[in-house]
């Protein structure tokens, strides 16, 4: 834990600097597992933040000074969690623990798979972007940002990451519930993965693949904010949680750790948006705004409409299955459905989605 002072004008960092930890008074132990991050003056501090945090701030400031906006997902597109907090609380009060346990376990696994971001291939920026990327978040993607993100999600060496923290929150809040044995099957089933359709075939596959992946992760991370609120409310509810304070605190730690992920992805995509991209053969040029906005909108539509609808239908069916196994099945099912507030995506299929562009 080196003491590194980052000045507000510094824009270049080494890999080791990006990985630098703050000095913690004590580590975070969640559910008996040593996790990343720790406490300073009793306050939780996220991992690998001593340099990463101010570095992202500096890159963001630079964008603002250049008058470039930041890309963001408008709140109206964020689908609510299903089952909602009142529905999930009702299920737990009725002794139906399995659906919530399954959801939390799947969240933990999916979070863990976030580590695969370290495998994202990055194009040769020098030949595929007109302008320089020196002193940007883009230039640091493979120089610490992806790796730090991967370690945050899945843990590293002797420290657990978000995967283990979600497991801990589940076990602390629900008092070590039995894990449904169909969790992995759930991950493997569902509609088959279609082949990714190229939107800009003239760009290199690596460039389009990287942008798509980053847009995808940014949308997931933004949507996850709703999941954090849901989980903190639910696991922090003393009427149903075995240790409300501790369980909610662990989820809160994960939520705080995710902030730099949203921030660096937002900054890097916005940096790319303000540049000019060259086609793979070098003969065509595209404005970054055209490429980023098109890909971002397409990803957002899929993830905010089709996917939540399918998830909702599947989970509803599973929950009904669990309810049907109880004695008061019809009464429970009725109340459960009454608590459903529903959700409709606010745009029709042919409408163009708004992408919120905030001042940096």
């Amino acid at each position, binding site marked *: 834990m080196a003491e590194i002072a980052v000045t507000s004008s510094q824009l270049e960092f080494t890999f080791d600097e990006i990985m630098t930890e703050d000095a913690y008074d004590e580590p975070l132990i969640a559910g008996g*597992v*040593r996790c990343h991050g720790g406490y300073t003056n009793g306050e939780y501090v996220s991992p690998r933040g001593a340099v990463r945090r101010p570095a992202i701030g500096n890159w963001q400031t630079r964008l603002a000074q250049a008058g470039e906006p930041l890309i963001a997902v408008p709140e109206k597109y964020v689908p609510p969690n299903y089952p909602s907090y009142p529905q999930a609380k009702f299920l737990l009060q009725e002794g139906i623990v399995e659906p919530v346990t399954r959801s939390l376990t799947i969240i933990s696994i999916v979070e*863990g*798979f976030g*580590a695969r971001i370290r495998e994202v291939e990055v194009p040769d920026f020098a030949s595929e972007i007109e302008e320089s990327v020196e002193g940007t978040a883009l230039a640091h993607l493979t120089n610490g940002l992806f790796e730090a993100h*991967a*370690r945050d999600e*899945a*843990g*590293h*060496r*002797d*420290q*657990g*990451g978000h*995967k*283990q923290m979600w497991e801990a929150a589940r076990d602390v809040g629900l008092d070590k519930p039995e*894990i449904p*044995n*169909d*969790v*992995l*099957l759930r*991950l*493997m*089933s*569902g*509609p*088959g*993965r*279609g*082949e990714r359709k190229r939107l800009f075939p003239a760009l290199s596959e690596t460039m389009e693949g990287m942008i798509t992946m980053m847009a995808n992760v940014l949308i997931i991370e933004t949507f996850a904010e709703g999941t954090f609120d849901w989980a903190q409310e639910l696991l922090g509810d003393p009427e149903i949680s075995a240790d409300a304070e501790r369980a909610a605190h662990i989820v809160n730690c994960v939520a705080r750790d995710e902030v730099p992920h949203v921030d660096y992805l937002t900054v890097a995509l916005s940096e790319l948006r303000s540049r000019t991209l060259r086609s793979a053969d070098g003969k065509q040029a595209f404005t970054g705004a055209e490429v980023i906005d098109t890909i971002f909108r397409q990803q957002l539509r899929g993830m905010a409409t089709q996917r939540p609808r399918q998830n909702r239908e599947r989970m509803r069916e599973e929950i009904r299955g669990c309810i049907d196994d109880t004695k008061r099945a019809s009464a429970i099912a009725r109340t459960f459905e009454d608590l459903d507030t529903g959700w409709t995506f606010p745009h029709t299929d042919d409408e163009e989605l708004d992408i919120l562009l905030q001042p940096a």
Partner: protein
Amino acid sequence: MTNMGRLIARPYRASRIGWTALCVWLRYKIPAWWDLLLRRDPKARDLSAVHQKNADHIFDTAVSLRGMLVKMCQIIGTRSDIFPREFVATLSKCHDRLPPREFDVIKQVIEEDFGADLDSVYSEFEPTPTAAASLAQVHRARLLSGERVAVKVQYPDIEHIMHTDFATSRRIAVIYSRFDDNPMDFLPLLDELQKHLRMELDFRREVESADRIREFFVDDPSVHVPKIVRQHSTRRVITMEFVDGVKVNDPAALAAAGIDTKNLMTRLMSIFNRMILAYGFFHADPHPGNIFVNPSESGKPVFTLLDFGLAKELPDGFGMGLFELMFSMMTFNESAMLRAFKELGFKTQDDDNDETLLLIAKRMMSRSDTGTFQGEFTEEMTDEMFDAIRENPVVKVPTDFVLVARAFSLLSGIGHALGQRANALDAMGPAPA
């Protein structure tokens, strides 16, 4: 075989097995005695050449005596955690290319089991088998309804041979333990082999396994398990739907058959992931001869799984434990790796030996192309892992893990032939459409 034939065969088999065992033992002992005489450490000697010579000798004896011994060799060929890699590499080749038995012998089994003439069950029956293996051979036939079928028939004297071979092997093991001052305890291994083979000899179990796995994929058109004709299947005969197809590891034939090979390994891994990680019951012998591929209407591959004799039930929680192990290896999370090892049933003689378990994982990862675990158990990685386990006898490995690692390693071999990765973690999401 007549009673007289059995009487003659029995001492002959026993003496061949005994002679082979003696030669194997002496090939290890003589150099060790020589080293002791010259005050050298026998443990320092490189035994690779001796292992190879002994493995070749056992292989020759097994192929010559056939039957149970071939099956035993196949099973030894799956136990990389116990036997040297020369044994595993050589004996695992004891596969399906064995000379067939005469048609009359096969016909007799069918007629005995059905209590009826062959002609009253099948309208056609090809006397020359399409494949002959250690326990049984397979013939093409046609039912009276006209349906084409494949008929797997067990050799009639196999139970008798099993009895003889195990009795002989047990005697040899007892004699060996008296003569060797530091004997390896073979009796538990023989017990395990015998139990395993008894199950495999009951074809009704294989039929149940096929039905069970077919049920897993009832909604998945990319997986086909041949239907069994129950009324014409017995303890020694299986009549099943005849399926032809391209061998999964033959890229030229796959292309010629118009099969879209893009993501073929991800699709195949997804099928085995579902069996191993999700359902906890799996086809434990995915060598290329047991997987045929045909094109669907859209050209996407349809996999036909064959031969469920080695299907295996995994304990509760095994799938999750294995997933956690692969995941923690991928993310270098050592504490999670240790938890997963223990969840899977790995044990060390003293509980403070966690470093040994981590060392095994590290050695395995060191043999991957990237120096990290990306989700694929390649042959080199599993070999390295089992070498590390054998060199650290404090570690006890669960048999289930050995079989699963072997299955993944066979799948990796198929991937290698196709120029694709057999990455189990990549195949964790829904299969490609």
